[in-house]
C-alpha cells in the first residue's frame, strides 16, 4: 500500500468527519431541552447563577461560533469538559471506549469464527439437513430482538443455571492493572490467567447477544459466495488438476469466497460499534454506548459530539482495514 493511497484516505476522511460534526451539531441545536435546565433539575437557582452556569458551559455563545470552536479544538484532540463529570470529555470517553471495542471485537471474532466454517460447510453440503438447519438458524439469528434475547440468556445461564455472570466485565476479587484498557490483554500482560478466564466468562453472554445477528448474516454471505465461487471455472480447473478436495475447498474456493464476507463484516462491525448500547445496558457493560445514550438524554453536548466523531472515525478506519484485507484476499484490487 502506497503512502499516497493512505494520504488519499485521510483526505477523504475530512468531509465525512466535517459532515458528521455538522449534523450532530445541528441535531443537538434543534433538539428541544435545555442542558442547564436538565442539569439543575429540581434545585433552586437564581437567574444570575443560571447565566453563570450557561457561561461556564459555553452555551452563551452563538451556535455557529460554538461549531467552529468545536472543530478548531477537535483538531487538537480537545473536546472540552463534560457537563457532568467535571473532567475533560476525552478522558471520560477514553475510560469507556476500550470496553466497547473489546466487546465488539470479541463479538466480531466469535461471529467470524462460527459464521465462516458454518457457511462453508453449508455450501459444501448444499441442501443437506445441516445446510437447512444452518439456514434456519441464521434466519432465527437475525429475527431476534437483541435486548429480549439478552435477557432470556441471562435468565437461563445466570439465574437458573448460574454458570455465567449476569453483568459487568470482570469480578472484583482480582485487581488487574490497567495498561491497554482491554481486559483480555491486560490480564495476560499481568500474567493472571485466572482473571483472563474470568474476563472471558463475563464476555460470553454479551458477545453472543451482540454477535448473533452478525453471525447469521456472515454465515449467509459466506455460504452464498462459497456457492458462487464453487461454480467458477477455476474451481473446475483445480479439480481437473487432480488436487485434493481439501485443497480445492480451502485454498482455491475459500480465499475467494471470503472477499464479500470481509466487506460485509466491515459494514456490520460499524453498526456493531454504533448499536451496542442496548447490549451494554442489558449486561451492565461499562461501554461508551450506554454513556452516549445517557448523555443525549442529559444534553451533555460535548460528550455526544466527541463520541459521534469517534464513531465516525472508527467506521472509516474499519473500512480502511477491510480495504487492506481486501487486497490481501484479492490481488486484483490495488490499494
Amino acid at each position, binding site marked *: 500500500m502506497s503512502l499516497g493511497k493512505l494520504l488519499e484516505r485521510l483526505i477523504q476522511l475530512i468531509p465525512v468527519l466535517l459532515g458528521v460534526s455538522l449534523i450532530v451539531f445541528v441535531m443537538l441545536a434543534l433538539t428541544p431541552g435545555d442542558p442547564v435546565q436538565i442539569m439543575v433539575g429540581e434545585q433552586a437557582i437564581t437567574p444570575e447563577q443560571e447565566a453563570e452556569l450557561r457561561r461556564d458551559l459555553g452555551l452563551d455563545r452563538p451556535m455557529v461560533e460554538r461549531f467552529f470552536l468545536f472543530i478548531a479544538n477537535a483538531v487538537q484532540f480537545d473536546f472540552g469538559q463534560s457537563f*457532568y463529570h467535571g473532567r475533560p470529555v476525552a478522558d471520560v470517553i477514553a475510560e469507556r471506549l476500550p470496553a466497547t471495542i473489546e466487546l465488539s471485537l470479541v463479538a466480531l471474532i466469535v461471529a467470524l469464527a462460527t459464521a465462516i466454517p458454518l457457511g462453508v460447510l453449508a455450501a459444501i453440503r448444499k441442501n443437506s439437513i445441516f445446510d437447512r438447519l444452518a439456514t434456519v438458524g441464521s434466519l432465527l439469528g437475525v429475527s431476534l430482538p437483541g435486548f429480549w434475547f439478552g435477557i432470556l440468556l441471562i435468565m437461563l445461564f445466570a439465574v437458573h443455571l448460574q454458570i455465567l*455472570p*449476569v453483568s*459487568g466485565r470482570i469480578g472484583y476479587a482480582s485487581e488487574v492493572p490497567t495498561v491497554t484498557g482491554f481486559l483480555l490483554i491486560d490480564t495476560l500482560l499481568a500474567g493472571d490467567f485466572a482473571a483472563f478466564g474470568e474476563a472471558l466468562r463475563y464476555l460470553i453472554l454479551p458477545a453472543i447477544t451482540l454477535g448473533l445477528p452478525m453471525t447469521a448474516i456472515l454465515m449467509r454471505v459466506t455460504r452464498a459466495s462459497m456457492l458462487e465461487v464453487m461454480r467458477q471455472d477455476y474451481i473446475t480447473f483445480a479439480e481437473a488438476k487432480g488436487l485434493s478436495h481439501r485443497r480445492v475447498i480451502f485454498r482455491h474456493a475459500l480465499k475467494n469466497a471470503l472477499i464479500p464476507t470481509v466487506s460485509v463484516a466491515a459494514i456490520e462491525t460499524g453498526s456493531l460499534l454504533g448499536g451496542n448500547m442496548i447490549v451494554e445496558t442489558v449486561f451492565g457493560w461499562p461501554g461508551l454506548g450506554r454513556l452516549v445514550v445517557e448523555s443525549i438524554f442529559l444534553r451533555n453536548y460535548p460528550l455526544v459530539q466527541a463520541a459521534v466523531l469517534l464513531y465516525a472515525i472508527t467506521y472509516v478506519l474499519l473500512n480502511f482495514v477491510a480495504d487492506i484485507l481486501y487486497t490481501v484476499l484479492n490481488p486484483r484490487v490495488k490499494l
Partner: protein
Amino acid sequence: ADLIVGFTLDADTLDPANHRKRETETIIRNMYDGLVTRDANMVVVPEIAESITQVSPTEYDFKIRSGIKFHDGSTMTAEDVKFTLDRITVDGAMGGQTSPRKGLMGPVASVDVTAPDTVRITLSEPWPILPAMLPNQQIVFKAFVEKVGDEGLATQVNGTGPFKLAEWRKGDAVILERFDDYYGGATDIPPVGPACVDRVIFKIIPESASRVAALLAGEVHIINELPAFSIKQVEANDGTQVMTVNGTRSFFIAMNMEGEYFDDVKVRQAAAMAIDKQLIIDKILGGNAAPIDGILSPDAFGSSELPKVGYDPEQAKALLAEAGFPDGIDVTMDTEGAFKDTAEAIASMLTNAGIRTTVTVGEGAQLSDKWRTKGAPKSGDMFFTSWGNGSLDPFDIFTPTHRTNDRGNSAGYANAALDALLDAAAVELDVDKRRGMYREAEMMINADQPYVYLWVPKDIYGVSKRVTGWQPSADSRINLHDACLN
C-alpha cells in the same frame, strides 16, 4: 468480605462539591462524612460535628470532633471544614466555577473558624432548615484538594468516611475498602467504629431486570430500585428479602390552569375524584406507597391530616357536567417513559369518568421545557410527574411547586395569599408556628386542587439475607458503615 450493591447509576464524579445527582451522592457518602447526617428515621444527628448550637437566628456554631483522620492518615481540622464550605458557597471557588451544590446551602454569608475546634456559619437571613440541608455536604481535605486540584478530586478520594476508594472502574463499579482508622461515625447511630465489611462494591446495573437477576443469582447483595412487580419473586427466593422505606418523592398530576379545561376548579376536582389512587397503589405499586392529599409526604415536616378527595367517578362526571362539559372532554397527559404504565392506568380511569385522556410519552428534557416554565405560558393539559423532597422539609417541595411562577409550578397556579404564607414560613423560626403555617397552606391548595396529589412511593430494596445491620434510609442513601455480610 465483599458487600456488593447492584446500583442503577455510576457516579458522575467523586468530588462531593461538584455533582448534582442523588446516585452520585450515595456513592460518595460512603467515603466522605458530613458535619451532620441523618439516622434511619431521618432525624438529623451530628457526625463530624460533635454538637450544633444555634447562636442567633442567622448564626450556627459547629463544634468539631477531635482526632478525625482522613484516609491518608492526616488529621482533620476546622480549617478543612471551612475550606469545604467555602468551596461550596463562594462563587467561583472551584477553579473559577461555582459549585452546583451552592443552592443547597441557602443564604450562607460566611464560614469562619471561631475556635480551633469550632466553625461558625453565618446566614444573611434566617433559614431554619440549614441543619436539615447540611447532610448533603461532605468534608474534604484542604491540603489534598490543593495538591490534586479540583479536577483531581473528580477521581481521587481522601475523605473521612468509613471506606476509602480502592478503584473506580468507570461505568462498571466503584470499589471501596474499609478505612481502619475511621473515627466511628455519628454517635447517635450505633454501633460506632470501623465498618464491618472489608470491601464495598457499587456495581452498576442500569437495567432493572438484570439487577434483579443479579440479586437472585447471588452476584450482588443489595439492589436499589427493585420494581414493585418483582417483590414477590425476591421474597419467594430463598436467600433474598425485600426491604422498604418511606420515600420522599411526591407524585402528582399537574393540571394546566391556564388551559381551556383545567382553569375551572370543578374540572380539576372531577379529575381528582376520577382516580382510584388506592387501586393503583395496590395493583401497580404493590402496596408500596402512601397516598397523599396534599403535596407533602406524611413523613415531612408540617404534614397533617387533610380532607380526602374520595374516589367517585359519578360525582366526577356530575362536576364535569356542572362545569359545562356534559359530554366529557378530550385531553392529553404528558409523562416520562418510566411512568408510562401508571400514567396509562390513570388515563383509563380518567377516561371512564369522562375526561378522555391520551398519554403522551416524552423525554425528560423536553417535558421540563414544556412544563417547568417558570411562569412562561404553558401548553398541554396534564403532566404526570413528581418532585423530590430529600430534606423532608416543605421548603424544597412546597414552594417550587406552588408558589406563583416558581420553577416547578407546572399547574400554573397563582395564589398571592399562598405565596405570602410560604415566604413567611420559610424564615419562621418557631417550629410550631411554622408547622401551623404549612397546615394552612395545605388547606388552601386542597380547596383549589391545582394538582391531583397521588402518593409517595416507598423505596424498595432487594437484599440478600446474608446482609445484616443495614437498613434502607428514606433519603435513598445507602449507608454501608454498619452493614455486615454473613
